[in-house]
Structure formats: structure tokens, C-alpha cells
């Protein structure tokens, strides 16, 4: 370890210059020292160089309308060409639904509306009857959404093979299935890891550490090639279901660790008090411990969900038509070949993922501050 011992006297410093007014503000925030001043100038120069380029590419030189890649070729358009938003506009339905039949697209739309309802109910802390909301989000909604998307001929909904699903729809399906499965499973695993029963504890710990120790892509490969091997001969697993199983198990291990962190913050006295009141172990868990633990763990849970949402992109590697894969497929369309197509496609995808993830991160931050407010009293 390094130590520092002062052996000579430090020279006294000049009195501080003005600290008030706009000049003082600038001096404090931008030019407090020579190094700081240089940094400020450097960053200003960088911004002056980069911002106009970004602005020109994204907005000023962008092509907004057009029927094919010709509109986005500088030699055809006769001007420098930035982002080719016409390409996104042309492909937007494919990016959203994949090959889902056009006549049936109201079904995914309705499913997303139901999802919004479930998510709103769960995330709005002041919502009425949040216990009913949980029931809706984790039981009723998955069943309804499955019937809507896959179809139920007996209910008059023609079935749509999962091979036709694609785009943002599949990304949402993977993320939502991951969340709906991993949250309850994660809570069970977290409780299992803290259990006093050795078999339960060892099994839960081994399960959690195994999934957390390997990369998701190997899990997806495993689900793809080994899941069919493990099942008896005549059962076949849907191609979309395989990565779903992999992602759900993978996410539940991470969820379990977050929930365990929450459980650790609940003082032992709470459980003892519940026992003193005559609550059974299950009751004390359900009514006293879990509500407190989950509240503390909520920001961590949302962060895990953000990670899960970003990880859904990996299913494109094992051949599932998620948002990234249909984007890559659209990009390969020879009708839309132009120099700026890749950059346009990636800028759009980055914007989509950023919006969703940043929104969730903001929510997590809001919850964290609210909880901290309770602590600060």
C-alpha cells in the first residue's frame, strides 16, 4: 500500500476570484484550473466538430420519403445523403411484426395494449388493487396473450405459426416471457438459497451459480441442440420455445440474486415479530418479509429486466427472427442498397432500444429515490 507523508510546507494559495455572477459560475464550473480550462476547450471543440455531423446525418441531409434505395443514393438524389429514413418507413411493418399475417395484426396490437395495462398496474405504486394486478400480469395476461398471438381456432382466431412471428413482436415475446417466468422462479430460488433445509439450499445455490457462470449464448445453443435430445422421442419443441426456456432459466438466476439481496435487508426481528403475532411461516413470508424485500429489490429487479431486454438480441444468433434479425434481413434487401443504409438501420435500432431501456432505468431511479426518501426521515 502506498503512503504519503508531507515533509515540506505547502505554499499558500492566492485568494479565490469572484464566486458569484455568470463569470463566477463559469469559473467555478468550467475554468476552475488550468487543466479544467483545457478540458473545457477540448470538449467544446469536440462538440463543435461532432454535433453538426450528427445533425446533418440524422436530420438535415436525411431522406424522408422514397420507394427504393435509389432515393438514398447521392448520385441519384443529386445531393449529399444522410440517414435513409425512407427505408425504415418502408420496412416498419416488417420490423414490427415480421411475417405475421397483415389481416391478423390487430391481435399483437391488442396483446401489447394488455401488456401496457399489466405493466402500468404493476409499476404505478399508487394503483388500486395491486394484488389483482399481479394476478392479471402473471396469470391472466400470459394466457390471453398466448391465445391472441398463437390463435385458437375454437374461439374463431385462426392459428398463426410461430415461424411467422418476427420483429419487435418477437423481442417483446422473449422479454415478457423471460420476465413473467423469471420473477416468480427467481423469488422461489432466492428463498431456496436462504432455506434452512440443506438439500433445498444446495440445489438452489447450484442452479443459480451454474446459470450465472456461463454466457447466455452457450445457454441458447444448449437449448437449441440439447432440449430436443432430453425429451422423449415423439415430443418436439417449437423453435421459438427453445430459446425462451433458455432465457427464462438464465434470467431467473440473476433475478434470484437480486431478490436475495432484498431479503437480506429485512431485519430478523420482522420475522420474529410475525411469529410472535402467531403468523405461520408461510404467512409471515407472504405478508411481512416478501413485501418489504421486494420493495427494496425493485430497482435491482428493473435493472435485471433492462439487462434481459438487451439480452433478447442474442436470440438472433440462434436463428430467431427478433428485431435485430429482421433489421439485418431488411438491410440485406437488394432493393434498398445504399451506402447509408447500415448506419440508418443501426441508428434506428439504437434509438428503439435506448428509449425502452432508458425509460426503465429512469423508473428504477425514481423508485430508488422514493425509497431513499423513506430512509432519510
Amino acid at each position, binding site marked *: 500500500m502506498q503512503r504519503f507523508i508531507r515533509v515540506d510546507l505547502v505554499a499558500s494559495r492566492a485568494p479565490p476570484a469572484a464566486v458569484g455572477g455568470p463569470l463566477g459560475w463559469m469559473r467555478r464550473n468550467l475554468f476552475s484550473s488550468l487543466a479544467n480550462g483545457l478540458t473545457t476547450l477540448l470538449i467544446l471543440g469536440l462538440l463543435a466538430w461532432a454535433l453538426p455531423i450528427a445533425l446533418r446525418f440524422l436530420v438535415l441531409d436525411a431522406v424522408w420519403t422514397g420507394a427504393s434505395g435509389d432515393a438514398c443514393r447521392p448520385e441519384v438524389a443529386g445531393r449529399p445523403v444522410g440517414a435513409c429514413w425512407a427505408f425504415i418507413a418502408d420496412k416498419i411493418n416488417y420490423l414490427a411484426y415480421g*411475417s405475421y399475417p397483415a389481416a391478423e395484426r390487430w391481435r399483437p396490437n391488442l396483446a401489447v395494449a394488455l401488456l401496457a395495462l399489466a405493466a402500468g398496474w404493476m409499476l404505478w405504486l399508487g394503483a388500486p388493487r395491486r394484488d389483482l394486478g399481479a394476478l392479471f400480469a402473471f396469470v391472466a395476461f400470459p394466457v390471453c396473450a398466448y391465445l391472441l398471438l398463437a390463435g385458437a381456432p375454437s374461439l374463431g382466431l385462426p392459428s398463426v405459426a410461430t415461424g411467422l412471428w418476427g420483429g419487435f413482436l418477437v423481442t417483446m415475446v422473449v422479454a415478457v416471457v423471460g420476465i413473467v417466468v423469471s420473477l416468480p422462479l427467481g423469488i422461489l430460488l432466492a428463498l431456496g438459497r436462504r432455506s434452512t433445509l440443506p438439500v433445498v439450499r444446495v440445489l438452489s445455490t447450484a442452479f443459480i451459480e451454474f446459470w450465472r457462470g456461463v454466457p447466455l449464448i452457450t445457454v441458447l445453443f444448449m437449448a437449441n441442440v440439447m432440449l*430436443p*435430445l432430453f425429451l422423449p422421442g415423439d415430443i418436439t419443441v417449437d423453435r421459438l420455445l427453445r430459446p425462451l426456456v433458455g432465457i427464462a432459466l438464465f434470467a431467473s438466476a440473476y433475478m434470484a440474486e437480486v431478490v436475495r439481496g432484498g431479503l437480506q435487508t429485512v431485519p430478523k426481528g420482522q420475522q420474529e415479530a410475525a411469529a410472535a403475532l402467531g403468523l405461520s411461516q408461510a404467512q409471515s413470508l407472504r405478508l411481512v418479509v416478501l413485501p418489504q424485500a421486494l420493495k427494496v429489490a425493485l430497482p435491482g429487479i428493473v435493472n435485471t429486466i433492462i439487462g434481459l431486454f438487451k439480452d433478447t438480441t442474442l436470440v438472433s444468433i440462434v*436463428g430467431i427472427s427478433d428485431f435485430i434479425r429482421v433489421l*439485418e434481413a431488411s438491410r*440485406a434487401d437488394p432493393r434498398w*442498397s445504399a451506402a447509408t443504409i447500415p448506419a440508418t438501420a443501426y441508428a434506428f435500432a439504437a434509438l428503439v432500444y435506448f428509449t425502452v431501456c432508458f425509460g426503465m432505468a429512469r423508473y428504477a431511479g425514481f423508485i430508488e429515490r422514493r425509497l431513499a426518501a423513506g430512509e432519510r426521515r
Partner: protein
Amino acid sequence: MLFCMAPALAQNGPAQGTLAQVKARGHLVCGVSGGVAGFSIPDSQGQWRGLDVDFCRALAAAIFDDPAKVRFIPQSSAARFTALQSGEIDVLSRNTTWTLSRDTAAMNFPVITFYDGQGFLVRKSLNIASVKQLDRATICLQQGTTTELNLADWFRTRGLTYKVVTFANSEQTLGAYESGRCDAYSTDKSSLYGERLKTAHPDEHVILDEAISKEPFAPGIRQGDDPWRDLVAWTHYAMIDAEEAGISQANVEEMRRSALSPDVKRILGLEGKYGEGLGLTTDWAYRIIRHVGNYGDSFERNVGAQTPLKIPRGLNALWNQGGLQYGPPIR
């Protein structure tokens, strides 16, 4: 001896023959690649089209007199053999190379439906005529296929060198080739014609004539089911024999009315009861030609000179026209 083998056979194959299962089910389940233009790809209406698809339609036509009684399931190259073994599909009609190790691994390949070889897609501007000129070039490949092995063998035995970049799927491979990461893109020639169409300027790329490997594509079935094996083989032979005899989808009705040659009569089921040996009706081959056409019809419709792919007949021409397609006589 036979006594002892009976249970072993029963374990290997399904308890009931595949043909009986298909008939009982009312439709055929066919594994296809599901993304190779001209061989198996769904069109904009979701209808499956292609040479591999037509083969399954011909099977369905022979069994049910209805080419629509097929369900197509796309199979990745990794999952295709498992799908066949597990009974998920009745026949694997996908660009699968017939090799000894695959044949002995509890699979059968009754007949070669398409003769292919590993080729190279290069830029015209490179002015390359032979694969040997690719010495020291960078070559893009899709990983996990025999192309990796063939390429290494071919260059090594000729004392040439090359640099390789491999990708997990064909989109990434083509993208890397097109963006200039590689000088050549190597895979089965039949696929290269489709890949070339996906480039921005197909006429700026050329497929070298030379092939560096033998890739005989054959439909795959489970081992130990001889009646099904016969039916799969003879479905292809019927299409070849029909082409040789001049019976096409366009003239089949007329030929059936006015056939004089005994060859034609036998193919169309007007003479003899040859279909019954296959467990079908006597007009089985007529059904195939009426619904799907002969081999040449299917070839021209899906991959031939009139299609964007423009694959030359080459080795797949009839034997009497310089090719290798030769059907044993129906008699």
C-alpha cells in the same frame, strides 16, 4: 437368423411404416431448408416454392393425388438429422450432401435428386477464371459445414494458401463478402446463384465454373423402412423417366389419351400395375406429372434459365444429354 433380427429392426425403424403413418395422418411432413432461393422458400403469399419443395409435393401427389397435402418444416443444418430421427419429419428434402458417415448414421439416402459442388462467388472486376487464381486470397465461409473441410483440403493439396473468415449464418457471410471483407464467398454452387441475387448489383459478381467438391444432394429418410425408401427413390425416377419419354405437365393429358409407346403407357399407368408394388395406385406417376410435372418442368420453373437464378442444367441434365440424371425403367 431372421428371427433374431426382427426385434432389432423394429427398434430401429418406427413400429409402423412411414407410408402407413403418412396415409393415416392425411398429410406428409417434409423438412426443408426454408431460405434457399429456388430450392425451398415461402413466396409472398406464404406458399412454399422450390425444387426441394416440389419433390415433397410430388410425393404427396403420388400418395394422395393432392400436392397440397404436405406440411413444410424449415430445418437448420444443425437440427435436421435430429428432426428426422425423432420422427418430427417423414422425409428431409433439403440441400443435404449424401456422405458415407451420414448414410451409416441410421439414415438412408434413396436417390440423388441434384448434383452440386462447392463453388466460388467473386467480383467480376478481379478477372478470375479459375479457383487456382484465388491463391493468397481471403475467402468467406459459413461455418459448421463441409465447405470448411473441402476448402482446406483443396488448397493444401495444391500447395496454395488462403485466409479464411467464417460466420454463423449466410446473411453475415454474404454481408462480409459484399462489404469487401473477402475476395470470394464459397459454398454450394446451387446456393451461390441465390446469394448472388441478394447482392446490390448481381451483374458485378460471377460464379466460377469450377467446383472443388462433389455434393450430391439426396432426400434423407430413416433407416430400416424399405417400402418408404422405394417410394422416395421412384418418385424421383418417375420424374426423370417422364422427361426422357417426353411427358411434361403441359402434354400429360394428351399423352394419356393418345399414348402409343409402351414406355409412356407404363409410366402413365395405362399398362401394368406398377404402382401397387409401391403401395400406391396404378396412376401414381401420372399424378406426379399432372400436379408437379417432370424433372425438367420442376427445374426450369424453380431454378432454370427463365428464373432469376439462371442455374445451368449441367450435371443435372438427362444422361442422354450429357448429364448424370438416369432413371431405371418403369416396368
